[in-house]
């Protein structure tokens, strides 16, 4: 029996090749898209959740009131971790982790750039990163042992066991390799080439600054099992206030590690979601694509009802009961779904590299994972049964007599539910088109934004090795060799908005105000190098003005907030220095180009805070010549390190990566949605044309032209598509309005976007249908009438 069903399935697939192709391709594409999204979603929701102790690990957060608004952030002061461990018995481990930095690693003359951070010794006890070799208790001990990852060890030391080898960092610090870590998965925030002990900071800077007012590192805490989080949070809340003798007013609380990645955005003290929103959005997209593919499958399967009806009649007449027929159609549908599933997996595998490239990650299809296999099989069964149950129940209920007599004309009644399905598909397609357009417009809008300085031929070199020591020599030689037209040494580059402070004081500042200023420091020529636009005053220039050591610049937003009638010459109190304002420049984009500009406060040489050399290349000569000259100079003063400047314009583009990724994903899935919907529409049009052969024949005999008939059939499809556009407009508007609220610098939603989206859908739909309608219209009426 079963064999008989299978035979029929394959023969009928073969006999209707075009039809089978549409049916299977639609489902396969839908499944491939769903698999890809599912992989990504799985990767996202597994982010840093794979640690064995994940339910006891928490991230320390700060919370404080600024100008009536509660801000929440997760950089903490350095002494917090040890204090928590010391004062609260519930704390099993407290681990501090600072930021990834690039270092030069050197092993017996072999030099590699290595990315690493510092962490407390309990790091590996808290987080589940298995050691391939080395002892978990001693691998981060003292201040001269560090751990490296598998890949880095292989690159640096070859295949040999690296433990015990001595590697030099930054030409200065010898480290014994204490352990080799298995490579970390992609979905963790702790990726690095090496992890150094916290005590390395002391070795680097001579002392560790245990200051409660500097929030710049992350603190992770593992509590004993069965600790009540609310109680614990109540106890630790005032720890910073207590230790800083009320100089700070941040409240501390612990937030679960398993939630911080997906739901770590707080607005005014309340949880506001975060990445989970985009994950949910794409989950919905995946479900819809699958639904659309299923709808297609059902649509196309029932469209052949007329043909299958005869088979149903015959089988009933020779003894089949309804159940046998239901089983037959379900099995048939599951088999086709399985074919599509296999093709879909293949398709997913083939497009995976491209998809990984698109979303900048390393996903792989876990073929050996039982959960995955179960999911795929379940998925095929569900799709097959879902898609098959409608035709199965519908077809098997045909009455043998009426079908065999040819009296069966009920199929036309099916057109209405089919149209509902078409409306659903195209509504979704239009939403996707409109969303893609709006996302692209938003990105374009931010890219077109006046960023306040000139990015072309501006580059920067972060300090490494001896640059700090020789910075002034490097600067003057860059200028004298005419490699650069201007050079400014600063605390940070123009891309990484990495410092702010609310400790700025000026005359007339409201009492208790905690207005936060973006903070930079320069040794001079800041405005000249960046080509800032000055609203009033001048650049900091210690060469020409000796008093400029304590000069400062503010941006327009700061000037507005400080509310000076004439800001030039006014004094600003900061870190026990009285700074005098020498210039006010137009706001420039330092943080996200999607956010509004913050007030900024740039201090002069007295700050003694520099990390970066910014170079405005000499416009009078070619880029390569300038770069070559600059490289020679850097090699001279910092021979141990490669010269790797960053170009501001390129780095700036990275600020759009996240949005561009969303845009590309939306675009890709919009195209897929349309493709699948069109496959379905094409099949439906074929069915419609076929079921109206007689009508078309009669109309032509009565004198209808080809154009008349084409219009007649096309019009039939225009209505549901128009309906989709009407339905899609509010859905797309609400979704995109919500999305745009994430950005304070945002474009508006204009009506033409909906018109364009709708028109695109209509054009594509008409084009799809036209093939069938023209074919039906030019058919010879004599033939079609005789066939009845």
């Amino acid at each position: 029996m079963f064999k008989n069903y299978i035979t029929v399935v394959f023969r009928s697939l073969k006999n209707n090749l075009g039809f089978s192709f549409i049916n299977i391709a639609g489902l396969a594409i839908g499944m491939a898209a769903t698999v890809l999204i599912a992989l990504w979603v799985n990767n996202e929701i597994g982010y840093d959740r794979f640690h064995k102790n994940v339910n006891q690990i928490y991230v320390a957060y700060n919370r404080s009131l600024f100008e009536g608004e509660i801000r929440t952030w997760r950089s903490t002061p350095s002494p917090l971790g040890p204090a928590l461990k010391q004062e609260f018995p519930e704390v099993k481990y407290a681990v501090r982790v600072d930021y990834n930095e690039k270092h030069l690693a050197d092993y017996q003359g072999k030099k590699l750039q290595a990315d690493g951070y510092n962490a407390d010794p309990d790091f590996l006890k808290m987080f589940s990163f298995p050691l391939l070799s080395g002892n978990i208790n001693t691998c981060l001990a003292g201040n001269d042992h560090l751990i490296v990852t598998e890949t880095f060890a292989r690159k640096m030391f070859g295949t040999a066991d690296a433990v015990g080898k001595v590697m030099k960092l930054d030409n200065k610090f010898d480290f014994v390799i204490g352990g080799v870590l298995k490579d970390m998965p992609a979905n963790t925030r702790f990726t690095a080439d090496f992890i150094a002990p916290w005590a390395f900071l002391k070795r680097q800077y001579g002392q560790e600054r245990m200051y409660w007012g500097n929030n710049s590192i992350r603190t992770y805490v593992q509590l004993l099992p069965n600790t009540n989080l609310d109680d614990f949070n109540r106890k630790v809340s005032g720890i910073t206030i207590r230790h800083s003798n009320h100089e700070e007013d941040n409240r501390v609380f612990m937030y679960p590690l398993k939630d911080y990645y997906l739901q770590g955005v707080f607005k005014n003290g309340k949880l506001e979601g975060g990445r989970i929103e985009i994950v949910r959005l794409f989950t919905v997209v995946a479900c819809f694509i699958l639904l659309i593919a299923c709808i297609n499958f059902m649509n196309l399967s029932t469209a052949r009802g007329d043909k299958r009806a005869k088979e149903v009649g015959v089988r009933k007449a020779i003894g089949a009961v309804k159940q046998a027929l239901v089983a037959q159609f379900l099995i048939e549908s599951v088999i086709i779904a399985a074919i599509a599933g296999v093709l879909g997996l293949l398709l997913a595998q083939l497009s995976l590299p491209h998809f990984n490239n698109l979303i900048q990650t390393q996903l792989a299809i876990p073929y050996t994972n039982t959960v995955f296999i179960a999911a795929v099989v379940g998925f095929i069964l569900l799709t097959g049964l879902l898609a098959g149950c409608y035709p199965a129940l519908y077809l098997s209920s045909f009455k043998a007599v009426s079908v065999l007599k040819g009296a069966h004309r009920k199929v036309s009644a099916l057109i209405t539910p089919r149209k509902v399905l078409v409306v659903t598909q195209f509504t979704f397609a239009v939403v996707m088109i409109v969303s893609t357009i709006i996302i692209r417009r938003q990105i374009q809008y931010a890219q077109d934004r006046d960023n306040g300085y000139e990015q072309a031929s501006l580059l920067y070199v972060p300090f490494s090795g001896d640059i700090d020591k020789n910075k002034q020599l490097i600067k003057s030689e860059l200028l004298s060799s005419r490699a650069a037209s201007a050079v400014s040494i600063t605390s940070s580059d123009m891309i990484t908005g990495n410092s702010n402070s609310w400790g700025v004081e000026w005359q007339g500042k409201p009492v208790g105000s905690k207005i936060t200023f973006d903070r930079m420091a320069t040794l001079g020529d800041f405005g000249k190098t960046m080509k800032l636009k000055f609203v009033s005053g001048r650049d900091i220039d210690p060469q020409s003005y000796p008093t400029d050591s304590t000069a400062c610049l503010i941006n327009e937003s700061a000037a507005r907030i400080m509310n000076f009638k004439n800001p030039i010459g006014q004094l600003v109190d900061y870190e026990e220095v009285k700074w005098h304002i020498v210039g006010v420049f137009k706001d420039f984009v330092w943080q996200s180009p999607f956010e509004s500009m913050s007030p900024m406060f740039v201090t002069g040489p007295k700050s003694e805070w520099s990390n970066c050399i910014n170079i405005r290349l000499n416009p009078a000569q070619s880029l390569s010549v300038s770069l070559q000259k600059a490289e020679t100079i850097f090699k001279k003063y910092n021979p141990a390190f490669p010269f790797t400047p960053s170009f501001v314009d390129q780095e700036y583009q990275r600020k759009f990566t996240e949005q561009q990724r969303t845009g590309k994903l939306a675009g890709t899935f919009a195209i897929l949605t349309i493709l699948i919907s069109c496959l379905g529409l094409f099949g439906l049009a074929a069915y419609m044309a076929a079921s109206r052969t007689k009508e078309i024949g009669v109309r032509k005999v009565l004198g209808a032209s080809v154009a008349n008939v084409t219009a007649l059939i096309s019009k039939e499809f225009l209505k549901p598509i128009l309906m989709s556009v009407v339905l899609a407009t509010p859905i797309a508007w609400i979704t995109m309005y919500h999305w745009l609220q994430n950005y304070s610098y945002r474009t508006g939603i204009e009506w033409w976007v909906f018109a364009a989206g709708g028109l695109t859908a209509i054009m594509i739909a008409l084009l799809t249908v036209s093939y069938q309608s023209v074919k039906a219209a030019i058919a010879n009426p004599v033939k079609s009438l005789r066939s009845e």
Partner: protein
Amino acid sequence: MLSLKQVSKYYNTGSNKTYVLNKVDLDVDQGEFVSIMGPSGSGKSTLLNIIGMLDQPSEGYMYFLNEPVHQLKEKQRSALYKQNIGFVFQAYHLIDELTVYENIETPLLYQDVKSAERKALVADALDRFNIVGKKDLFPAQLSGGQQQLVGIARALISKPKLLLADEPTGNLNSKQGEEIMELFKKLNQEDKVTIIQVTHSEKNAQYGSRIINLLDGKIDSTVIL
């Protein structure tokens, strides 16, 4: 073997009932060869379909092999039908996707006949109807007469006691038609299969043992040959 009592079939058209069959009484004995004749719309096919249990009467009783068909549930009716009735159609109604062999085999599948037995039965049938050479062909590759031969082979594969034929020669030329009718006669006389056929052709009706003339849903006359 078969007994119809006061069987009616009607459709509601508006507030009126349109009778296709009107209180028909009919008894058919084992071994008979009955031809049902009558003009278009007289209810011939409906009567045949009711006898074949493909259709149900609106009113009346029907006994088949002493079973009250009108009281049976669908499953029981289907079982009774599967084992005892074979159907031959004017338009052959073979399954396009199946070969000759598979078409003939299909009824056995629905009766859960074991594979080895199926093979033997189908081989027998192919042999008997002289279509062994055609067993791997698809219906579309056969002539009308050959298709109808396959249709009859399929109808007889489960050794039914009753063979129902709805204008079996309607789509065939006269030579092919004659061959089919000869076959029916042989089946009736040698294999003792009871046959009820619907036909338009006076000539074909003569092959049977009794002719029933229907007119407007009623039995108009009966001729015993």
